C-alpha cells in the first residue's frame, strides 16, 4: 500500500496547481476550474485520512460527499454569475471586472 504521504503530496500539488490557476488565469471560467481543482484536492486528503485512520468511522467520506455537493452548487451559481457578468459587461476577463474598489 502506498504510504499516506504520497497522497498528501499529490493533494498538495493538485491544490497548488488549482491555486496557481485561480491567481494567474484571466478568464473567469478558468478561475472557476481552478477552484474546482482546489476543492478536489481537499477531497483526496479527506479520503486518504479516512483510509489511514479509523475505517469504521466514515466521517471523512461523508465530508467528501458534502464537498462535492457544495462544489456542484458553487459551480452552477458561479457559471450563472459569469453569464450575467458577460451580458452586462461583455467580458469574462477578471481584471476588467474591477468595480470592487473605493
Amino acid at each position, binding site marked *: 500500500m502506498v504510504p499516506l504521504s504520497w497522497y498528501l503530496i499529490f493533494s498538495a500539488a493538485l491544490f497548488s496547481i488549482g*491555486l496557481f490557476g485561480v*491567481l494567474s488565469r484571466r478568464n473567469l471560467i478558468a*478561475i472557476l476550474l481552478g477552484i474546482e481543482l482546489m476543492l478536489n484536492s481537499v477531497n483526496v486528503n479527506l479520503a486518504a485520512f479516512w483510509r489511514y485512520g479509523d475505517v469504521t468511522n466514515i466521517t471523512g467520506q461523508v465530508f467528501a460527499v458534502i464537498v462535492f455537493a457544495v462544489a456542484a452548487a458553487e459551480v452552477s451559481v458561479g457559471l450563472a454569475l459569469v453569464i450575467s457578468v458577460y451580458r452586462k459587461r461583455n467580458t469574462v476577463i*477578471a*481584471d476588467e471586472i*474591477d468595480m470592487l*474598489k473605493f
Partner: protein
Amino acid sequence: MSTETIIWLIPLPPALAFFLIVLFTNRNKALSHTIAIGAALLSWLGSMIVFARALGVERLGERPFTSSINWLATGDTWFKIGVLVDPLTALTLFFVAWTVLMIFIYSVGYHNFGQPEGDHDHKGLPPHGATVEEHGSKHVVPSVEPMYSRFFAFIGLFAFGMFTLVVSDNLLTLFVGWEIMGLCSYLLIGFWYGKKSARDAAVKAFMTTRIGDVFMLLGIAYLYSVTGALSFREIFTETTLHTLQIIPSGVLGFSTAGLIGLLLFIGTVGKSAQFPLHVWLPDAMEGPTPVSAMIHAATMVSAGVYTVIRMFPLLSLDTQTMSVIAFIGAFTALFAATIALAQNDIKRVLAYSTISQLGFMIAALGIGAYIAAVFHLITHAFFKALLFLGSGSVIHGMEHGVFHTGKHEVDPQDMFNMGGLKNKMPITFWTFLIGGFALSGFPIVTAGFWSKDEILADAFAHNLPVFLTLAVAAFLTAFYTMRQITLTFLGEPRTEEARHAHETPWTMTIPLIILSVFAIGFGWIGIPEHFPLLGGLVPNWLHEFVGGTLAEHPEAVEFSWTPLLTSLVVALGGLGLGYLFYRNVNSPAEDKLQLGFLKNKYYVDEIYNAVFVKPAIWFADKVVYQIMDKGFIDGILHLFGPGTQGIGDGIRNYFDLPFINRFLGDGSANVTYFSGEKLRVIQTGRIQQYLMLALILFLAIGAILYFFVFSV
C-alpha cells in the same frame, strides 16, 4: 356666628380688598372702590356687632372676649396668637371702624371719581384737571386721580393693619399690624411719588418711625425674655407684673417693667409723632388728604397711643417711666401748639395740632389718667378725622377755583389765599366749625371739651406743672384753631380762586356730617358725675366701661372748680382772641406771629439734618463707599478677577489647546486620514490581487506562527 369668630374676621375684608384690587381689578376704578368700601363696610359691621355685644356683657373687663390659637412651637410650649376684646378694644374698634369707613367713602369724592381723565395727568402726580366742552364753551374741571385703584388698595391694607393691631391679644401681632401701617404710611405719603417733596416725606416718615420701631421691638424682645409671654392677659397678671416690678434692669435705676415700658413708649413716640420724633408728621401732609386723615385720626397715630394705653398696667409700675411719659407728652403738647401758630398751610396747622393733642393723651397717661387718655383718644379721632376731611374739602373747593381761573401757581392749601369760604362751602364750614370747636374744647356741646376737661382735671389733681403746661397748650390750641377758621372761612375772599370755590360732592360732605355728629355727641358719654348742673343727668358710662379694663378700677377725681374754669377760660379765651386777632389779617405780613423760629419749627429739621443726616451721608460716601466699597471690597474683587483669568488662560494655552485640541482631537483625525490615504492603493477592485494579498499574508502569518510561536 360667635363673637370670637367675628373678631377674628374683622381685619380680613380690607386685606382681601387689597389683594383683589392689586391682582384683579386695578384697571376698573368703580369696581376697585366698591370692593374697598364694601370691605370697610364689612369690617365696620363686624366691629359694630362686637361693640354691641361687648356692651351687653356685665364686667367685660374681667371676662373679655378672647380666642387664641397655637402658632409657633417654642421649645416645650406654644407661642399663641389670638384676639382680645375688652372695653378698651371695643371702644377703639368703634371709632376706628367709623372713621375708616368715612375716610373710604370720602376718598371717592376726593379723588374725583366720575370726572373725566385729565388732559395731561401722569401717574404719581396729583391730577391737573381736564378740559371739557359744555354749552359751547370750554372750561377746566377736576380730573380723576390716575392711580385711583391703587389708592384704595393701599388704604385697604392700612385699615387691615389697624384692625389687626386693635384686636390683637399679644404684642407680636400688634407689632405686625404696627409695621404694616408703617409700610402703608410710606406708600401713601409717597403716593404722588412724582413730587420730590412727597418722596422725601415718605422716606422721612418711614425712617423716623423706624427708629421708634427698633426700640419697640427691643422692648418686646426684652419682655419676652423676662416673662416668656407676649399675650396681654398673661403679662397683666398680678404675679408677672410684680416680678417685672421688683427685678431691676440695671439701666439708670429702672425696674425691668420701667425699662420695657420706656422702650415700648419710644415706639409710640415714633408712631404717634411725639417730640423728638415728631418731624415726620407735618411732612406727611404731602400725601392725599384722606391719607392724612387716615394717619392722623383713624389709624397710625392712634395706634401709638392705643399701644401705650394697652400697656398701661406695665408702664404704671415704674414712676420714673411715668414721669418721662408725662414730660414728653406735656412738652410735645405745648411745643407743637406753638409751631401751629405760625403755619399757613391749612393741613400743616392740623398736623401740628395732632401732635399737640397726642401730647395731651400721652401726658394724661403719664400722670395716670387712664380713662381721660382713652376718652381723648376717641374724641380726638373723630374730630381730627372730621377736620382733616374738612380741610381736604376746602382744598378741593379751592382747586375748583384754581381750575376756574387757570392760575396754577396759586397754592390751594395756603390759608391766606382763602377767606370767605363760609358762603361758598356751607356744609364744609359748619362741619369744620364743629370739628374746630371740638378741638378747641368749646364748652359743653363739643366732645373735645369733655375729654380735654377730664385730662385737665386729672392733671390738676396729680401733677401741677403738667396741668399748667397743658392749660397753656389748650389755650394755644383754641387760638390757632380760631385763626384757621377765621382765615379760611370768615371775612371776604382774598383771591379770585376763593371767590370761585365750590362745595364738594356728597361723597365728601356726608362723611363730614356723620363725623360731626360724633364730634359733638361722643362727649356726652363721659360727663363727670359731679359736674355742676349736668353731672349725673347722664351716667358717666365711659368711666364705668373703660375703667373695667384695668384690674383696679381707677377712682374718678374729685370735682374741682379750678380746672373747669381753666378749661372754660382757655377755650373761650383762645377762640375769642383768635377771632379778634385774625379778623382783619389779610396777608402773612400783617400776621404778627409769623416768627422765624416758629415758622421754621424751631429748626428741628435743620438740626436733625446737620446732626444726623449730613454725617450719615458723609459716612456713607466717604467711609462706606470710597474706602470700604471701592477700596476694600472692589480691591478684593479686582484681585480675584485677574487671578481667575490668569488661571483660565493658563489652562487654555498650555493644556486645552495643545493637548485636548491638537493631540487628542486633531491627532486622531490625522492618523486616521493618513492611514486611509496610504492604504487606499491596495484597494484595486481586482479580485485576483485580493486573493494574492490574502495568500501572501496567510503565508507570512503562518510562517511567523510556525517559527516564533509553535516552535517554542
